[in-house]
Each structure stands twice: as C-alpha cells, then as structure tokens.
C-alpha cells in the first residue's frame, strides 16, 4: 500500500476509508470550506503561472532531482493553502465505483484541465461534498445539475468515462479528505502531465499493476492503444506490460475481449513494488 494508505487508510486504502469523506468537526469543516473555495478561486493559475517556475526547475539538469525531492515532501503534507495538500492517485474503475458509494452530495463539475489546455467544456469531474460546494461558487465551474447525483448515476457516469478511455483518479481536497474522482486524459490533464513529463509526483500510481496471461492474449493490439502511459508493447504477437511504467488504471483490462489482462496488487510484482 502507498504512503497515503499507511497514513490515512486506517487499515484499508486511503480512498476507501469512510472517515476521509466528511469533515471531522466544525473547525475542520470551516477549514475545508475555505480551502476548497480558495482552490477554485484561481484554480487555473495554481496549475499554470503559479507553478511554471517549478516545472522549469524540474527539467534543469542537476537541480531537477532536488526539486522532485522537495516537491514529494511538500505535496505529501496537509497544507493550509491550496495547492498544497492536493495530491491524487490513479484507481481502476472497480475502485472508483467503491469511492462513489462512499461519496456524499455528489455533483458533476467541468474539467479545469480540459478547459485550460484545450478550451473545452467537459463534465468529467465527480466532486464530493465541500469540494463540489467550492466549485459551485464560481460560475464557470458550476455543476451540470444542482441536485446531487445518486451513487448509481455516478457509477454509470464512471462507466461511460471508462469506455471513453479516461483514467480515473481520486484526489485529496486537501489531505486527508477525499474530494473528487477525475477522469483524465494525457496530455491535457495537467496532473498527469506534471507526473509524466516532469516526474513531479502530483498523482501516484494505482495500488495495482496490469499483468498479461500470455496463453490468452491473441495480440489484437487493442490494449496498447488505450494505454496513456506507454506501458504496453506488442512483441511476437503478444501484449507485454512493462510493470515499471504501468500506472494500474485498468483501461487495458476493459479493452481486452479475451480477458487476457488481470490487475494484480502492485506489491506482488517485484519490479513494480514500492514504485508509486
């Protein structure tokens, strides 16, 4: 299990710990309202002008690894102001559905990244409770429908996003509170881009790794097309997953018509174990 499960999971995964879904007391509630409002007030700036210096440094030879070290440490802390305390993790569809069952007052809000990077209005973010309330305060991020979605409606939406080939990610808003399930596509997703192109750990790999059963794979080539992490290659007519690159999102598994791909716990694969 990842560092967040160890710290905020109470024996399970951090995003399946029900006490991470609601403010624990009145003081925390005030803090969450303030944090999430502030998060949305200049949300595009948190992910662009405000962090441009960090991305520039992260790609500077010599300094880059130091920036990543400090970044990892800083991102993993609660943080009294956004964007600090805003970290996420990739989850497969099945886990995202479990998260949807735990979420309170669920709304569907527009994706900030697709707006910034593509100029698109796409309702692909599932927001919970006070995070959704934060979004609703700003006209351009108001939910598609004011009244909350049921768990079943949310799960149906997640299924649609999965078919579109979007990677599901669960987010702290802020640590240790679970605020949202995003449905992301690289490179428009700013967090996946920071992770992949700058190796800044804004989003952790999932608790799983994909594994191909060679005897069941017919080499049809569907799964590598779905992978956003360039983790699957076709070699001698068989799909091969590089466990060091795999983020465990499970999109390849859903694409396979022969059930040749399974998701196994990250810890059970030596070359992927401990790689978050």
């Amino acid at each position, binding site marked *: 299990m990842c560092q967040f499960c160890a710290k905020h999971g109470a024996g399970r995964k951090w995003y399946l710990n029900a006490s991470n879904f609601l403010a624990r007391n009145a003081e925390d509630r005030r803090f969450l309202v303030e944090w999430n409002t502030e998060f949305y007030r200049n949300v595009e700036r948190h992910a662009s002008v405000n962090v441009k210096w960090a991305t520039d440094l992260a790609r500077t030879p010599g300094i880059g690894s130091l920036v990543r070290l400090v970044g990892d440490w800083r991102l993993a802390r609660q943080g009294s102001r956004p964007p600090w305390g805003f970290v996420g993790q990739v989850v497969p569809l099945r886990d995202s559905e479990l998260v949807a069952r735990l979420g309170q007052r669920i709304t569907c809000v527009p994706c900030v990244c697709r707006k910034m990077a593509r*100029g698109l209005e796409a309702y692909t973010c599932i927001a919970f409770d006070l995070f959704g309330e934060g979004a609703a305060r700003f006209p351009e991020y108001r939910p598609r429908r004011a009244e909350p979605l049921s768990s079943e409606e949310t799960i149906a939406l997640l299924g649609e996003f999965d078919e579109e080939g979007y990677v599901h990610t669960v987010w702290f808003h802020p640590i240790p509170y679970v605020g949202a399930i995003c449905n992301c596509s690289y490179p428009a997703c700013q967090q996946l881009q920071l992770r992949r192109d700058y190796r800044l750990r804004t989003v952790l790999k999932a608790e799983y790794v994909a594994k191909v059963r060679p005897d069941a794979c017919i080499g049809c080539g569907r799964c590598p097309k779905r992978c956003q992490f360039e983790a699957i290659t076709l070699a001698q007519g068989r799909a091969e997953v590089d466990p060091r690159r795999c983020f465990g999102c499970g999109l390849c598994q859903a694409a396979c018509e022969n059930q040749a791909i399974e998701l196994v716990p990250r810890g059970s694969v030596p070359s992927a174990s401990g790689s978050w």
Partner: protein
Amino acid sequence: MRVKIDYQRCARPNQCARCLQACPHAVLLMYPEERKDGRRAEGWRVLAMHEALCNGCGLCVSACPRNAIELRG
C-alpha cells in the same frame, strides 16, 4: 523551442482556443486574470506553460487566425 505569443493580436483566447486544440503535446495553456471574489474572470491569456515539451511542429502557428504565434530557436 521558444513559443512567442503576441498578446496585442491574441485578445480573447477563451473564445477561440484553436492553438490549444492544435497542439499534440498540450504545450499551451490559458489562464484567467486573478479572481478576487466569486466573479467570472474576464481576461484570459495563453501561456506556453510546457515550452520545454515543444518540438516545433508549427501546428499552433497555422491554427491561429490572427498570426499571433511565432516559434523561435
């Protein structure tokens, strides 16, 4: 590759966004002026946030209806 944007020519990127959609690596981002309160942001600006990832393909240059983008280096 340096991506130079002429802000005199690119005035309302949020109503256009053609360069954003053209870029295969999502090098360009747009961000609004600072919001002091809950009001909608008026002015938006395109920023070559991920300039380091630009391979100089020039698709943004040809997508821009106002010739506001120039690639250098």
